[in-house]
């Protein structure tokens, strides 16, 4: 890359980093993640707007579409936004309500074998529509987001079984309920998204569920790391048999979302940072699955996306500048790559001092 181009890009990045960057920066300057976005699109998004997760057999799901749509809206890429949205509507919007079926399988009939939704996919989808409505000046997108938010509120928000009155965002419209409690995925809680959607659509239950979810995270973090899955019961919480209660690939999003939501000092973030710091792994590998109670490392990965999450979490709890986040690598699988992208976004939008070193 010629030195002059690098300097121009660096100047753009400098200009962006000067402000406490939030979504909606000046369209005249390239976003500092412009190169990352181009690489992400080329690696994970097909021309028809389908975001492909090769590790799921090449499937697409509401999560990947929701993440992709959010990234497109944040990067103000109208073409990509429209393409992703179009594919998603045609292939995942098959339910009676405004929520999305959670998964589409290629070369399978039917391509959508399960009509259940995934609430995090719908949440991110609605959030993307909100951001896009602002970025592209398309009020109609807010109306669509409102419809999704209301259906989320109606079908995916339940009372905590402990009688506290706290609202819980369930993983899906069905399948979460047990006789003894309800199954919860803490990483589906994205407070910033829920607050933004609630503000834009007037869906107050989402806002309440966000705040109550943080409170539940307080409970879990007081015991150790946040688990991937947990059963919320009248008497508290318990592991779910047959589902991992380790701090793994799901739960690693929790500290990221808390940081992105402006809560870098939440106990869950601190616990995660402590566990990462105590892990004795080889250079270049990051713990991806840890015992939630004693932090013992059960699995590692050398995908830079996970290292990025670890880097941002580590920086969030420190006071000094700079974080150890590696360069974006489009050769890694979709999930760590997308996590890395969101980590970089969270850093730019909420923790500028944690600029990657």
């Amino acid at each position, binding site marked *: 890359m010629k030195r002059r181009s690098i300097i121009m890009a660096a100047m753009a990045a400098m200009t962006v980093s000067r402000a406490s960057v939030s979504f909606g920066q000046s369209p005249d300057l390239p976003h500092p993640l412009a190169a990352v976005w181009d690489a992400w699109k080329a690696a994970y998004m097909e021309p028809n707007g389908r975001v492909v997760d090769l590790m799921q057999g090449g499937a697409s799901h509401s999560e990947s579409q929701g993440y992709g749509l959010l990234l497109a809206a944040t990067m103000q890429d109208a073409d990509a936004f429209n393409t992703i949205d179009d594919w998603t509507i045609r292939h995942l919007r098959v339910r009676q309500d405004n929520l999305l079926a959670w998964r589409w399988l290629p070369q399978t009939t039917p391509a959508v074998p399960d009509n259940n939704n995934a609430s995090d996919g719908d949440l991110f989808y609605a959030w993307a529509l909100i951001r896009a409505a602002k970025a592209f000046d398309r009020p109609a997108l807010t109306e669509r987001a409102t419809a999704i938010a209301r259906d989320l509120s109606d079908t995916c928000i339940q009372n905590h079984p402990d009688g506290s009155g706290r609202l819980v965002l369930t993983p899906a419209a069905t399948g979460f309920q047990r006789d*003894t409690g309800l199954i919860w995925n803490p990483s589906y809680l994205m407070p910033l998204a829920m607050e933004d959607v609630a503000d834009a659509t007037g869906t107050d239950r989402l806002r309440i569920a966000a705040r109550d979810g943080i409170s539940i995270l307080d409970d879990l973090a007081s015991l150790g790391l946040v688990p991937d899955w947990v059963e919320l019961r009248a008497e508290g919480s318990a592991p779910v048999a047959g589902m991992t209660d380790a701090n793994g*690939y*799901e739960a690693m999003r929790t500290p990221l979302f808390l940081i992105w939501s402006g809560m870098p000092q939440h106990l869950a973030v601190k616990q995660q940072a402590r566990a990462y710091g105590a892990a004795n792994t*080889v250079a270049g590998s990051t713990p991806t699955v840890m015992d939630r109670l004693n932090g013992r490392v059960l699995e590692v*990965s050398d995908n830079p996306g996970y290292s990025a999450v670890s880097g941002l979490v580590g920086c969030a709890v420190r006071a000094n500048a700079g974080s150890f986040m590696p360069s974006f690598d489009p050769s890694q699988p979709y999930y760590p790559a997308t996590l890395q992208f969101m980590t970089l976004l969270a850093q730019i939008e909420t923790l500028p001092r944690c600029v990657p070193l």
Partner: protein
Amino acid sequence: MRYPVLAFILSCAWSPTLAQVGAENGQIDLSLLLNGPQIASSDDGLPQIPSVEVAIQVPAALPRYVRDDAGDNPTLPATDAGDTKPNRPNFAMSAMGSEIHRLSGEYDEIAVDLDVPLGSAMNDLIITYRNSINIMADNSTITVLHEGVEIAKWQPNAPAGFQTVILPANTLTLGLNRIVIRAEQSHRIFCGPEASFAIWTDINLARSGIDVANGTGAPNIDNFRRAARAQIVADGTLPLVTAVVPATRLMRDLERRSAALGTSGPARLLLQSPYSVTSEGVTSGAQARIVLLAASDFPGVAKLPEVRHSPQGPLILLMSTDTTADMLDDLLPLPSAIVVPPDLTPGQVTTLNALNVDDIAIRSRYRRVDVPFRLPDDWLVLTAQRAQLDLQYRYAENLPEGSLFLIKVNGITVRRLPLFGEGGVVLPELPVRFSARLLKPGFNNISFEAIIPGDPSDMTCPNIEGPLLEVSGNTLVNVPASPRMQLPRLSLGMQRLTPESVDLVANLDGPPHVEEIATMLAVHLVALDDELPPQDMARLTVRSLERINQVPLDMMSLDRSTVVRALTPQKPERTDQALDVAVTEDRFAQPSQRAGRNSDEIRSGITSSWLRVRALAWPGDLPLANWMVGRQGQALLLMPDPTHPLNLWLIVGASADAGSVARALAAGRLDPLGPDGQAALLTEDGVWESWRPNAGAPSLNEPLTLANARAVAGNYASWSPVWFVGLLACFMSISVLLGLNYVVSTRGSLKR
């Protein structure tokens, strides 16, 4: 639910515990509730609660994803087994160098000062080598010595590619260790100079050195330097991660400092955004990088640079835009001045020992040993004066007929001596006289070259104990003194170039490679003289062909088209067939055309004759425009005004390679065959072709006295015989006329 009772009991057991979320420190002691092992607390105070298995039917409808990337083996326990990527340079090694060094011929060696950083835990001494397939392993050895003591010896056996030999490092010490790797090699079939060229061992210096125990990547100065050095060795770059536009001065300063890390050349600073994308899975900066943060954005970042250790492995030098150059001196000191060849004082007899050359021992069938030295810049001998070597040498017995010993001065053979007939004895001192005008002001070389054929050439070389040729360090060198005179020469300005000398193209609209060349020059031109005051420094202005109008070509009677033609790659030459066609077509030209061509031939004949006469009268090259006809190169170095020899210009062609131009210019300062005269063309092969006109007369830098008059006159006469003869003729004529006038005037008075 399969175990409802158990579930109920356990839920009761859990309930008071798990409901106590208000515990101040999060510690929950279950030892009273569970009849299990004592619950221990971790150092963080987190309780280690055994997981409870409750058989709850998993709902099939909940979204589930396969996230791990381990395939059928989901568990990859964390280990600290060390670097598992053998193909990547491991910065946990104090390497011997950065390039591949070739040991060639029957006997050759390399000496390296290996630095073992303080605080390191040494594992092994590693030598990575390969050898030519022509080597007869049974009769060859590689020996490694530490401080003169042999620590390992083995037969070379790596004709197929690089192999690594692991040696114990227990004799090495922290700090500098002198390591010598010596190769004694025999050709398996032939003997002689050609066979000598065909036997070699390559030492990969980047993969040879001390293997330091992993985990010594503590963020300190020494480790950062090692890591940076390894990074530069890996791909020649040192990433500079920044979201601000770095000042050009800072970039140059950092590049110059990187040159002092001990690599074969400075690093290319690779500007990177903090939000960069790796390319094809390759990340630059895997060992070390520099991060620059804007002080205005990160006021908490200290001015003083600090080193941090990334969990991904690299060591990071963190600095802010408020960091000043002197704050980097501890971390990345500037390179010290180049060690130049020793001075030789004309008029005084000097030994080779005094020129830092010990006894020379040649053990190969072909070997050349150079003895560089430096004469004063204002030493000038153009006459037939002689310099002299009083050679003390000996050679082995029974060397075959045809063995030769060549003595060369700046590449010109001045004496050929046989190396057969009187071998095995110390020969009487032999005076070797040669023309002093083969020497030049500045850097010179005297070379001793041995060519010893095989005996016979189609059989392996016989074993000969000891050197084949020895030249004593007591050999004397006597270069005649000269009056302090100077001819305008590029080499004078070249030696005064410093990193501050280069005039960078002021704007960024020029071709990027010119800026790159200027930057590379500023980095490569490490000063030859630490003490050079600013007013004595030379100035080098770099321009591209697009900016050639800014170059004062008219001062050298040079036109733009000639320069453009010389610095632009030309089309292939016409083939013979095309030439035949041209000749055939020519045959059918009209008479008027033929007449025109005949007159052209006559004109060119007159011109060439005049040029020959001119060359006799004023020895020197043709005018520059004529001299450049038919020449091709990648850069042209000019000294437009001989009265200002420190003002140099460099015109670079479109195809010029920044690195090779910069290196050629830097190396040319010390090379007797480097740029000289008033213009020099750098060919595509990296060779300098110098234009030496006879334009400017030598300048005399001392008063003319009776003592130096003869030498001064001799130089002027040699500079231009016709001019000098003409001057003498004038003096003679004036003398004759005066004499005649006197005779005539006095003769008349005598008659009266």
